[in-house]
């Protein structure tokens, strides 16, 4: 019953801002980001950790936020697509996605960008197969995979991060 749903206090830092929240124990990090914090850049699609549309950084690691309970994120630092660019500007990856044509409908783009950011943080100069493997968890039905790879490669080569 709605009124009997147990809530748990958590504190998370989202895109550099500390947030104290009361969350339902069964709500996912994705639910909280979208419904409580109204950060709707993180998208909801498969809810089983297969499509990557809900990818965010949790303490620097990429996670499918649909598979993380909000309570598990207590104390964590979260970065969503809204936090990728420096204030009012695009990150090098965001710009490269536009320049290389890596965005069509755009629904998977936030997840792709977060995953690509994490990939480059781990491996500053990935080869094409490493990019493809690194982003294999992010589905794009418009299928601009080639252009996404080119965008990541362009940033890696330009080292402009």
């Amino acid at each position, binding site marked *: 019953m*709605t009124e009997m749903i147990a809530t748990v206090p958590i504190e998370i830092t989202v895109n550099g801002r500390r947030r104290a929240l009361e969350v339902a124990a069964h709500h996912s990090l994705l639910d909280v980001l979208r419904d409580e914090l109204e950060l709707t850049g993180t998208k909801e699609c498969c809810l089983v950790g297969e499509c990557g549309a809900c990818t965010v950084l949790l303490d620097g690691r990429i996670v499918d936020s649909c598979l993380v309970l909000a309570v598990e994120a207590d104390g964590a630092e979260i970065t969503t697509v809204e936090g990728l660019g420096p204030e009012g500007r695009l990150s090098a990856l*965001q710009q490269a996605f*536009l320049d290389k044509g890596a965005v069509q409908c755009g*629904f998977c*783009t*936030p997840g792709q960008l977060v995953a690509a950011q994490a990939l480059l943080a781990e491996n500053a100069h990935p080869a094409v197969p490493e990019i493809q493997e690194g982003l*294999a968890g992010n589905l794009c039905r418009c*299928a601009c995979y080639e252009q996404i790879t080119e965008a990541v490669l362009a940033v890696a080569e330009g080292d402009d991060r």
Partner: protein
Amino acid sequence: MTVERVGSSPNRVGGIDRVTGAQQYVADIRLADALEVRLVTLDCGHARIISIDTSAAEQVPGVRLVMTAADLPQPVPRFGPQFIDRPVIAVGETKYHGEPVAAVAADTKDAAEEAARLVRVEYEELPAIVTIAAALDPDAELVEDPSLRPDDPLARTNVLREHRFGWGDVDAADADLIVEGRYTFPIVTHFAIEPHAFMAAPDGDGIAIWSSIQHPNWLQRIVASVLQMPLSKVRVYAPDPGGGFGGKQHTKLEPLIAFMALRTGRPCRLILSLEQTFQQVRRTCADVHVRTGLRADGTLVFQDVKADYLIGAYADIADRVVAKGSYPAAGPYRVPNVRILARSVLSHTTPATAFRGFGNPQVNWAVESNLDEGARTLGIDRLEIRLRNVAGRGDALNPVDTHCDGDWQQTVRTAAELIEWGSPLPPGRGRGIALGFKSGPTTGLSYSTVRLLSDGSVLVFAGTSDMGQGARTIFAQIAATELGVPLERITVISGDTAVVPYDQQTSASRSTVLMGNAILRACRDVQDQVRAMAARLHGIDESAITVEQGTVRLPDGEVPIIDILKPGLGRMGGELIGNGMSRKDAEPSHPLQGTAAFFEFNCTAIEAAVDEATGDITIFRHVTVSDVGKALNPLQVAMQDEGAAIQGLGHTLMEHYIYDDHGRIRNAGAIDYRIPTSMDLPFELRSAIVENEDGPGPYGAKGMSEGALLCVAPAVAAAVREATGAVIHELPLTPERVWAALQERPVTGQDEEARQ
């Protein structure tokens, strides 16, 4: 300032919002006080509803409404784009897995979910028809109540419609060789990453609807008719869909949500899960029987095609898919005798609908594969047989339709060069080549308004849905070209039927041509007004002035439009408002009620190898060449072609629905239904275009974006055949299917050697 005219590839209009997360899709829009809706469905494909008890559900705190058919006007309204057959909510019976029998609206998702679980439905499961064979069994139960099809001679069968096309006389045709084959194409789904989403809210004395829809004006018409409201009281907001591919063309659950909003007096929102989206939309599967008649020199004598397409429990647009998809079955060739019989067959499955390529990939798979068989038997090269038969510019295809509208030989030769057709291959590799062919829109109507504001910036109103194809960018580039304005000073407004003029639909790769022409005309209307203004300011006759591409040419020199606009408007400001319309009328006597506005023509060539131990296919090279007339934005064209090519690899290699005996989709969702990922790409994917500026759209553009999907399957299967000798007539070419075919392949001396 740079003016990004047509032919350049500026960054996508709306792209910044897409990379920052600011882009609002339907599910991202928050309406104050909105109720969350959850559907109640049954765990089988076909059932008789005995009773529905909503009392426990209504007791859940926060629940505001549990709606069933009993709460709707009686008889429960039905709707559909082609047949008025689909009820707003199930009435007495469910006919496909996932058809809602009730819907709950509550203050929170949690309350709605809990209440949906507490709705008690007593039902009797009935046998579900999920295959073509079962539906065509003379003893099969009828999917559709015959009383809904009065005067229809097929009403006592599961065949919704039969379509017969053709010319010449197949039976009298004299062929040296007749090749015959049967091919099947699976049920696949769109899998847009954005699941379908709907909202509705009372809006004064009318209703507002939000939907991830490709055809907002069509949705408006259907909601108005179901609610019995004037069009002016139904406002459809259509935020850019997060992928459409045809699946978001037609009305689905919007009428139900609209009734719930009116009943509760509050906004209602229903965001489907991916699994539920699988239950909403899919492509028709097909069983295609083809007989091809050839002369010994490879000249086509006849094509005789019978295609049964399995459509769903309600027609949606699927019967049109069957008709328009099977109609070009003879392909882009000169064929003197053609007979096509296509049937749309009803079943207890997800309503089939439009999907990129419409109904063409199904017959294309069969007819192109069968042509290869003919070439093999006659000992003719598979490229050569296509070049021998492909139509040349102006050649008749179907005698009553548009003639060949491009240099198709050039497209085929380009693909052959890029794949290095005829050059030696490494051992174990094979090549395939196939032609894709699709009729463009047969009717169309698009209006646009272009407003040149007092500072020279521009608003373009266009009702096309930008679902990723990049329509806004193309439209802005057309306005930039015509009015000489840089893109950052142009805004394209779409997705609101109360603001944007009528557009028939976003489908059949029409928008660059039909909406593009409407925008071009609206811009030229503005140019005419600028000319009149210049004549007035300079006290000369209009005939002495021309306005072209943003420049006003006067007898004594030329100036940019803004230099006329500012003094012309004067101190009170104002604006110039241009209107444009583009129309292609129906032709009642034509077999499809209209000729093709253009054809989409593509040649796909594949180089592949197969792992003999596992049956796994590796695609080394994938070449896709499309005749696009003129690429208004070459990067976007490449993105669309390459995306379509990879989507084609999906139904070719991995995608298919599996139904169980209860009519349930066993593999709904992202775990058990696989689409291509970044790990499934060809080692080399190469797209190229042919541009002869010979299309009916602005600057000679043709529609594009479906062509590169059409013939992926026959090209891949042909490469597999050449690499291994395995003959496969069923899709997808999964490893187990390929492996099984490897075991059954005809043994020849050469194969024996290859295997040693």
